[in-house]
């Protein structure tokens, strides 16, 4: 469904000798329809940048990317993106923020409202629809951002550390809700996180990015059927392995 081939991306950087910093080099990834992929890596390695490139917000310097759409795209958008910061529009109510991506799709006002409220209900904020963003807690804002991405009913959902700002209990319940949603809608998910436990609990595949420029350092497939136990011993072992690899790479100058 997504084929990324030899993707490279550099930002201009006047301080470096060749005038640019290469963030991603020869990055390859293919994602099957409905797959749940987690991307982990150290801060600043290029995880957010990767999502930006996939979303078409930053043109790559080289490489190709194919994103095959499936099904009827009327009233929908090809992807939904949850930014690392909630990035709500302060002049819109919660409901209107969630409806942001639905505008320009030829939907009636009532239809947009219905879909926005549906998405809000999914993240447990149906009763906050009429509020202003400044009246929400940080975690609630992040959930509104998730609802905004879900509202456009995308095939591909990209999430950049969406639960990073939440307390452990809310995070766990949203993780389970995300899994539930994913099972019901068969969306493809690219999920960036710092939290290796979270990655291993959620994903079919965990991709470790490291180095500068960043490349895929390891890829682990997790076959454990869902629902998974959070204290599953195989999962714990894998978490430890990935964590060790990551710290080796950081210590050993692999970055």
């Amino acid at each position, binding site marked *: 469904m997504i084929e990324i081939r030899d993707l490279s991306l550099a930002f201009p950087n006047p301080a470096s000798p060749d005038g640019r910093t290469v963030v991603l080099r020869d990055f390859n990834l293919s994602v099957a329809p409905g797959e749940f992929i987690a991307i982990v890596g150290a801060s600043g390695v290029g995880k957010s940048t990767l999502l930006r490139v996939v*979303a*078409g*917000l930053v043109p790559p310097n080289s490489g190709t990317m194919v994103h095959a759409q499936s099904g009827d795209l009327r009233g929908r*958008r090809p992807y939904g*993106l949850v*930014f690392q*910061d909630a*990035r709500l*529009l*302060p*002049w*819109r*109510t919660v409901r209107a923020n969630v409806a*942001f*991506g639905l*505008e*320009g*799709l030829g939907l009636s006002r009532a239809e947009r409202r219905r879909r926005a409220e549906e998405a809000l209900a999914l993240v447990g904020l149906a009763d906050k629809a009429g509020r*202003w*963003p*400044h009246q929400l807690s940080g975690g609630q804002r992040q959930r509104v951002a998730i609802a*905004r991405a879900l509202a*456009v009913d995308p095939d591909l959902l990209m999430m950049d550390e969406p639960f990073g700002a939440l307390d452990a209990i809310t995070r766990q319940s949203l993780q389970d809700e995300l899994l539930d949603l994913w099972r019901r809608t068969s969306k493809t998910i690219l999920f960036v996180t710092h939290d290796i436990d979270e990655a291993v609990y959620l994903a079919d595949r965990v991709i470790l990015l490291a180095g500068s420029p960043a490349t895929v350092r390891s890829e682990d497939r997790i076959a454990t059927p869902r629902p998974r136990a959070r204290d599953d011993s195989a999962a714990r072992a894998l978490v430890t392995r990935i964590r060790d690899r990551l710290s080796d790479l950081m210590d050993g100058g692999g970055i």
Partner: protein
Amino acid sequence: MTPPASQNGPGAETPAPGKRIPPSAFLAKPSRRHRGLWALLGVIAFLAVWEAVPRLGLVRPVLLPPPSAIPQAFVAEVRSGQWTDAIVHSLVHYFWGLLIGSVTGIAAGVLTGMSRRLEDFTSWVVRLLRPIPGLAWVPFAIIWFGVTPTAATFIIVLGVFWINYFAALGAVQAVDRDLLELADAFGHRSALAKLVKIVLPAASGTILAGLRTGLGQAWMSVVAAELFGVPGLGQRMMQASSLLATDIVIVYMATMALFYGLVDMGFVAVRDRLMRWKA
């Protein structure tokens, strides 16, 4: 006439013992009634001082008539019909000057803010024209339009234009790039969609502040623009002052203050409604 200096000594900031200053004195919102009361007290104190100055013989009343003399002068001016005439003329200048100046200023500022090329293209023209005060255009206003309401309106437009131009330009350039990226991510990629959905709402606070400054600036320009003989309140004030009828001058000053106050109050009400999303 000097303010009581003893209050402003270096020790004045130290609070009296036992009297604590709330930690968020700047942010705490005093109750509505309290604020209204203080505003009223301020006005009363101002009028009292003004009344006292000519009455105590500190200044001759012909140079500064006391406020108690103003209502009488006002009634006489209204009876003669001159007040209504002057006000209607001035309001027409004010309205058109403000409308044209604000709309063109905001439009030019927003466009320039959206286009780097346009900003470069206009930068030196703006630098050259900007410092010329509205009054300096009076000779041209008269040559181009004669001593007409159009000439007066033109002067007002110039003053209001620059205020709104710079407010809108700055506001648009300050729009958070992240929000523009958000628009891209959710399919709003055209310049028009970004303008409507992100740029204008994000810039609205500063643009409205510019508009409000313009409301006041336009009254200043009205007086200036009418001094050279276009009928209106400025012209009537010049006549009165040449006759040393200072009470009539004050009648018009008060009239202007009143109209400004009303317009500004209405404006703030509309603004607060538009900006209710702010904390």
